[in-house]
């Protein structure tokens, strides 16, 4: 009872603050205050509020069913699970299919490495762990109400059909549990969801449906991937030739083909080199590779350069040349994150500083008390390396030597001479985050919760880590420190028009993009040290020799002439 009262109190305080901010915002805008102005409360926790909430156009032709004509979808509905029940009353097998999906399980057993992966347990280099923070993080779980261990993964009514299938734009998700006061205020003041309207307005997912989570991975627009952000909702031709809203207008599922609610294209087990291409005539290939449409020899053999480019396909991923830079759509991606600076307060309150203005004019936080300091990048040249598709994770169980440099949270495998790797572009994220100093493992932090131990409230790493580890039964030495980590995000979206693709000399030159890759010979970049020295010396020697010979001839011919004359 006491708790509920507190919640109600928090909520009403929050609502007042929210209203106050709404009232103040236009005035602040008009007075042209600099973006670094400190706001008293970090009020944009709900990072998925978007100004443009109208759906994008997905034109698959008219469906055989108009969902607004189904009586059962008229409602009235009080909650999401009630809508799901209605969906499943016709789509009788959809629930069973969907429960196989990683969008539901958040688990992935890697067939090659045997590692147990998935958001359910993984450490990441952003908010560090969803585990134990599901009340916040499972906003991006396609289900209703996952806030702790008690969530029922076998109850089909818990499936959230609408987050993917709402085509009205009126549906949204909020955290499954209230966080600390510092956070909970952020989710107030939203219009209630018009359940009947969204239930009747379902359809195949548009880019913003997938984007509701995948554009905002890592805690904000474009934060994680660099090649996925809200600019892809209605991208221009220059930004993405396939998703071009005025052109091909691909939905995500145009490439990420789906069979029984399972999607092609895994980040845990990437198909980094598709040698099958388009497959046999009429064959359906459940892969999201470029080659599955464009073949493994997509350039014209009738031109010399085309033939040469086709010859690159075995060593160079399509993305390497055709995605010259990432974060091109006016939305920045986070490149560095330092947790060490988190926890500063002003007058006992958390705050944020917005010192980065991205291409589309929005100001991005460069400091947040709850998270630390950030750096951003736009039009970024990716990090390139050999990649065979295998990601190797540092999980909560992995031990590492912090003295050996940055810990690769999702390292990857590949080499120039394994016969299968290709050079891929990655976004590399550099983070400094807490780890268990005694056990040399990563840690689970208890970030989210309406309690005194949650970091997002008390700004106390020691308690947040202790509780985060204890509540998930992970041994903890009791001492933490900070370690630099890397995470790598293979780049595959934001494919540029072909005239913007990289040129030969972008790599085939002394100062090219692949300068850091070693161990193999690349024309135009590499030379043969001793041969070159010898060769240039010999050429110079020959020139000098003939010059000298010529001078001698001239000198002696005068002498001979004089002698003959005398």
């Amino acid at each position, binding site marked *: 009872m006491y708790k509920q009262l507190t919640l109600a109190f928090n909520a009403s305080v929050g609502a007042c603050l929210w209203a106050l901010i709404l009232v103040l915002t236009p005035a602040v805008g008009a007075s042209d205050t600099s973006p670094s102005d400190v706001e008293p409360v970090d009020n944009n926790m709900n990072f998925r509020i978007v100004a443009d909430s109208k759906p994008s156009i997905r034109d698959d032709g008219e469906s055989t069913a108009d969902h607004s004509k189904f009586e059962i979808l008229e409602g009235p509905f009080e909650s999401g699970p009630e809508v799901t029940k209605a969906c499943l009353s016709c789509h009788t097998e959809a629930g069973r299919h969907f429960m196989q999906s990683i969008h539901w399980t958040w688990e992935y057993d890697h067939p090659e490495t045997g590692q147990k992966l998935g958001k359910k347990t993984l450490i990441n280099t952003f908010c560090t762990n969803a585990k134990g923070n599901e009340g916040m993080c499972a906003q991006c779980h396609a289900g209703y109400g996952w806030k702790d261990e008690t969530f029922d993964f076998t109850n089909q009514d818990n499936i959230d059909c609408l987050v993917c299938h709402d085509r009205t734009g009126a549906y949204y998700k909020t955290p499954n549990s209230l966080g600390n006061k510092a956070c909970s205020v952020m989710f107030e003041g939203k219009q209630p969801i018009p359940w009947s309207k969204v239930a009747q307005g379902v359809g195949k997912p548009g880019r913003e449906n997938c984007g509701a989570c995948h554009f905002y991975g890592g805690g904000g627009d474009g934060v994680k991937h660099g090649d996925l952000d809200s600019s892809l909702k209605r991208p221009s031709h220059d930004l993405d030739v396939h998703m071009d809203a005025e052109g091909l207008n691909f939905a995500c599922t145009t490439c990420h083909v789906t069979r029984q609610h399972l999607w092609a294209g895994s980040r845990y087990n990437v198909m980094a080199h598709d040698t099958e291409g388009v497959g046999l005539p009429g064959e359906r290939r459940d892969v999201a590779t470029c080659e599955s449409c464009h073949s493994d020899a997509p350039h014209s053999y009738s031109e*010399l*350069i085309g*033939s*040469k480019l*086709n*010859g690159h396909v*075995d*060593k160079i991923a399509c993305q390497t040349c055709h995605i010259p830079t990432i974060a091109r759509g006016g939305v920045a991606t986070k490149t560095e994150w330092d947790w060490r600076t988190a926890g500063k307060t002003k007058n006992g309150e958390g705050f944020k500083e917005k010192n980065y203005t991205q291409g589309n004019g929005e100001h991005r936080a460069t400091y947040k008390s709850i998270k630390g300091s950030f750096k951003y990048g736009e039009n970024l040249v990716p990090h390139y390396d050999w990649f065979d598709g295998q990601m190797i994770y540092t999980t909560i169980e992995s031990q590492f030597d912090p003295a050996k440099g940055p810990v690769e949270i999702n390292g990857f495998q590949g080499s*120039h*001479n394994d*016969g299968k790797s290709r050079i891929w572009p990655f976004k590399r994220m550099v983070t400094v985050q807490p780890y268990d100093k005694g056990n040399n493992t990563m840690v689970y932090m208890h970030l989210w919760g309406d309690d005194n131990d949650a970091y997002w409230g008390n700004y106390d790493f020691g308690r947040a880590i202790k509780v985060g580890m204890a509540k998930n039964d992970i041994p903890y030495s009791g001492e933490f420190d900070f370690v630099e980590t890397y995470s790598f995000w293979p780049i595959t979206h934001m494919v540029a028009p072909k005239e913007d693709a990289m*040129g*030969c*000399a972008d790599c*085939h*030159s*002394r100062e090219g993009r692949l300068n850091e890759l070693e*161990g*193999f*010979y690349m*024309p*135009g*970049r*590499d*030379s*043969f040290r001793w*041969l*070159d020295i*010898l*060769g240039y010396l*010999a*050429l110079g020697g*020959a*020139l000098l*020799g*003939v010059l000298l*010979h*010529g001078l*001698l*001839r001239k000198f*002696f*011919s005068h002498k*001979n002439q004089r002698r*003959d004359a005398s």
Partner: protein
Amino acid sequence: MSSHAKNRNQDTTIKKRGEKHYVMLYTRYERFWHWSQALLIFTLFFTGLGLHGTHDLIDFRTAVEIHTYAAIALIVLWIFTTFWNFTTGQWRQYLFKEGVLKVIRFYAYGILVGEPHPYRKCLQRKQNALQSLAYMGFMIFIGPALWASGIVYLFYDLWSGYSWSGNGLFLIAFLHTAAAFLMGIFVIIHIYMTTTGKTPTHYIKTMISGYDSIELTEAEVAYIEETHAVSMKD
């Protein structure tokens, strides 16, 4: 001068040399071969140095295109020329001749002190012993090293799938570069040698017009007048 006469080939004392005549020594095809080959080699050398990263005067992509097409053209030219050499019997010009050391001695010393060339150009022997040796080296060593490594390089995509392709590419590029340096040295010396004629441009003019003034035996003159097998201007 008379003391140097002893250095002359014995031939001259056996076969009686006659007057000098202005005759066609280098036929139209030979000159076409020579000058198109020169142009292609210069093109290949320039673009090749660009591809190698020695200079940035040409865009890599353009350099690849020009280098490839010029290489194909040169290979075609060489195939024709090999055919020409064998059908005309001109390949004998490149056979080893005695007297290489004498020619070397001449260029190292004799040319400076005004000695006459130890070798005399005649109708059936256009090249001196050193020339023959140099051109033979060009044709059986530098040339093949370039085109053989170049073809393997050009068709990298056919063997890039093998596990040894990485080392193979290094080796092929190494050989091709090394041979290109040798070609460069050959060209520098070759061009310089053209200035050692009667006048600095005499040999170049000869290679353009095809005519040179050489001594003909009476029999040769009679043969030419009878058959018109060789063009003679006087």
